[in-house]
């Protein structure tokens, strides 16, 4: 009787890696597209206050920030307390109303997030709140970090 020789399987045993660059490029493009680099250069010093009962704001598009804190001067010096909106220092609190009103026109569901240095006196925040009331931007948020 003749012996039957078993055919050896001639299939490749390894996963082809030739498409790896394409996969990585896909991921890369995804990250490049979804990354929002809307960095504001802070001109005021802000150390966040801490709180326990805080909420997350998921809709980043709706948020605009007002920064309040001591102004950063040259050589790590800190000046007097100033207000910063977007990229510029606001000298006069009265200007806040117009700025925020314009933003509210663009985005009716605007949330104003106040990022205030934790040793600021509250008077300036009160002034800003009055301005916001006049502007009609009533939803605010005091930015704080999670207390551990």
């Amino acid at each position: 009787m003749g012996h039957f020789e078993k055919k050896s399987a001639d299939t490749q045993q390894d996963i082809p890696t030739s498409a790896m660059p394409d996969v990585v490029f896909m991921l890369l493009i995804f990250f490049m597209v979804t990354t929002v680099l809307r960095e504001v250069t802070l001109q005021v010093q802000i150390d966040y206050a801490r709180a326990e009962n805080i909420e997350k704001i998921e809709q980043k598009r709706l948020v605009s920030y007002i920064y309040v804190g001591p102004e950063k001067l040259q050589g790590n010096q800190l000046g007097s307390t100033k207000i910063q909106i977007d990229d510029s220092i606001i000298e006069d609190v009265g200007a806040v109303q117009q700025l925020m009103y314009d933003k509210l026109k663009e985005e009716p569901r605007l949330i104003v997030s106040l990022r205030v240095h934790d040793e600021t006196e509250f008077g300036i925040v009160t002034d800003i709140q009055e301005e916001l009331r006049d502007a009609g931007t009533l939803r605010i948020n005091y930015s704080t970090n999670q207390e551990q």
Partner: protein
Amino acid sequence: MFDNKRDREDPEVGGAGMADIAFLLLIFFLLVTTIDVDTGIGLQLPPAPEENQEPPPIKERNLLNILVNSQGMVLIDEEPTPVSQVKQTVKEFITNRGQNPELSDSPDKAIVSIKTDRATPYNVYIDMLDEVMGAYAELRNQEAQQRFGVRYSQLEDESDEQKAVKDEYPKKISIAEPNQ
């Protein structure tokens, strides 16, 4: 002479390093991407007052006056209170349901009024506000547990259940005009 050109390599750019380049870029983007979700204490400001508009009359008992003065002391209805006690005091005030004549009639009539001085330190104000929010959060959690057996945070947004709990304990926080 110079015709030993048989073993010259193909003039092609090697595609093998492509993956590594892409990986490096990917890692770079992963590192520099900051997805910072803004966290904080949300609040709804009262609308700007109309001209010559009288504020609506509110019974004194339904109003809890919290004053944070310039020394960073918290006074609740003229009573100096340590910040750690604020939550308890607010909870007692809200859940009084007409028993103590000094405190609120019912949770939906209870209003927490917050007043500050110009020189109030911001972090004390935030600590105090945190406590007030904590009081409401605990009460809402209790209510959600009793009614639906789940935490308040687990109720779906805009659902009827969440609305029911919110109606039971509405957050009524008023920002009073500051002392000049």
